[in-house]
């Protein structure tokens, strides 16, 4: 998973000549999104804001920890507030796309004091009650879809490629719940700045927007994003603060024991 990196891709595309850009394919663009350099590890504080149709808000704060292990990466999300989710920890291992191996995912709920393996074949479930599904937190997988570059378009004054993605198999549909996804990729930064998700009838039901894009340690990073449910009118925002790359996060932060003991100040000497 690299939620930050979905949006913050490598900058190599911006050095391409006009001819090269003309020849670029949708697969090339999305491979650039996926494979851009984004540091060996990432630390951030995050707030997940759940906004009802009437505007009422609920906020969940969490620590975001991610580290690369070769072509795989590991993620730890540790919730700190409010009281009813404090201590909930989610861990996952996302394997290199080319090995076609299913992710590993675990959840620790303090109320059960048990680390529970959860199936990764259905990622349509809501992430902590938000409009983000678990699949939306995953690193972009190029081969899950057949994609076509359909046009170029400006989003917030930024030049973007617009790519139409069709799932390559029924398994992908069952895992993601998406029958088609349109993706807007910022040309300069290779960041995904907008996505529209379609149901089986071809009707859009969810939209993603990158609301704030900034450079952190020369890495383009989406620090504020929004997911709108077009059916029920609810919106969720994911806001990152204190983002740091290459901080030297300890391996213990990505092992199971940390789910039970919790991430403490002493576990993060590099960022405190």
């Amino acid at each position, binding site marked *: 998973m690299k939620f930050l990196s979905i949006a913050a891709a490598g900058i190599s595309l911006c050095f391409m000549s006009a001819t090269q850009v003309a020849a670029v394919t949708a697969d090339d663009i999305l491979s650039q999104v996926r494979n851009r350099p984004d540091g060996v590890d990432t630390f951030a504080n995050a707030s997940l804001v759940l906004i009802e149709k009437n505007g009422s808000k609920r906020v969940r704060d969490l620590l975001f920890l991610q580290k690369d292990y070769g072509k795989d990466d590991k993620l730890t999300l540790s919730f700190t507030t*409010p*009281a009813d989710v404090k201590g909930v920890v989610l861990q996952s291992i996302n394997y290199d796309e080319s090995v076609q191996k299913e992710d590993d995912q675990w959840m620790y709920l303090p*109320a059960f004091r*048990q*680390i529970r*393996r959860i*199936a990764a074949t259905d990622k349509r479930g809501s992430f902590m009650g938000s409009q983000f599904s678990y699949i939306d937190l995953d690193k972009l997988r190029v081969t899950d879809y057949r994609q076509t570059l359909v046009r170029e378009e400006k989003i917030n004054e930024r030049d973007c490629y617009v790519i139409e993605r069709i799932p390559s198999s029924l398994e992908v549909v069952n895992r993601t719940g998406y029958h088609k996804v349109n993706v807007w990729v910022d040309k300069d930064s290779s960041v995904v700045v907008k996505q529209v998700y379609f149901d089986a009838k071809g009707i859009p039901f969810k939209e993603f927007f990158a609301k704030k894009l900034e450079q952190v340690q020369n890495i383009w990073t989406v620090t504020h994003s929004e997911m709108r449910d077009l059916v029920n009118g609810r919106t969720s925002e994911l806001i990152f603060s204190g983002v740091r790359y290459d901080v030297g996060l300890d391996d213990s932060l990505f092992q199971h024991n940390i789910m039970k003991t919790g991430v*403490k100040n002493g576990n993060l000497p590099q960022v405190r």
Partner: protein
Amino acid sequence: MRRLIQFTSLALFTNACELQALEVSGNAALNLAAHTAGAEPDLSEQGGQLVVKFTEDRDAFSLVGEGRARWNHAYANDYSEAARDDYEWSADWRELYIAKDVNQWNISLGMQQVVWGKADNLRVLDQVNPLDYRDFVLPDLNDYRKPLWMAKGEGYVGDWSVQTFYIPWFEPNDQATPGSEYEFIAIDPELLQSFTLLPEKKPAHTVDNGEAGVQIARSFSGLDINFSIFHTWDDNPVYRQQYAIDASGEFIAELQPEYHRQLHLGVAAAYSLANGFVLRTEWLVIPDSVYMLNVADINGGLIEETTVNALLGLDYSWRDWLFSMQANDRYIDNWTNEFASAEHQPLVTFSATGQSFSGRLESRIAIARFTDESNDQLLQIRTSWRPDDYWAYTLGADYFSGPAQGTFGQFAHKDRVWIKVQRYF
């Protein structure tokens, strides 16, 4: 007295440390439960609960505590005096410990709970902490597991996660107080009529009588596996039959409740299958389980045999729902019909837990049923509405069925519906 020492030592400790980053959270709840099958009193619960959790996280150590105070006015008049004393007002620590990281190991000292195994609300390997059965098995397991004083270490040896602990003082399960709502029939009443029941004989609080355990765990791609060994005591007593002659020369038969050492050898695994399924299994082998016989012999009617307890579970995730099925049974080696316990105790459970309305509505239905001829069964339904991060309104129902002396059936007249209003802080 021990509780007073705990609170005093905590107060002294916190004063001495000048708490810098104390985080406090918890919830206050009001509870009401009503019998629906005619049992008296009409209301079995009219009270509340306060849970306070705190964490002081420093570079050198962390202090973790969770205390709980409970009040149930139903015990003021309608149950036995002993039940009123025990349950009208009560307070306990759910955990209270100091932890420190030392060279990649987390060392903790204090009152703690250790949960082993992969089962969902069933205990096969989860035998480290005893239980308090004052509310039978109706709450979440975490709410009636008793914390124990222990020294615990968690770390890694190579790729294996290791957890080890030493418990200096054995604590058995707490059976519900006689005359309380869930007084449990642990022993055949007919047997008790012909015997004098003696006070329990508990192991002395000595170093030799402590309990110790080690669990190692590792995850491979798609597979989690744990191995454990636990040198413990049986949390439930067995009743030795003995005979004596009283002062008047009368021959008397006595039942002596006593606790026995056990060795637990366990293995648990969870494997991610295709299409959203996760398979779970747990196996516990106890080579020295002690059982009562229906006939007296030179060993006081007690016999030691190997017991195997196994569980197979299957979870299925579908969007925001988790469906879980479990089958559990035990096997007693060399069992004969002279054993007071059945050779098998086949139990199946099914549960469905899901969320909707952006996580504000959570619902759960759970069924536990013994699949022998008894058809003993417990059905629990619960739905909780959380309009915001502070309030939760929960409506639930518990339905028992089965024979009058069945595990669940004995409470068949105590079906209930209940509501709980919680304020988180």
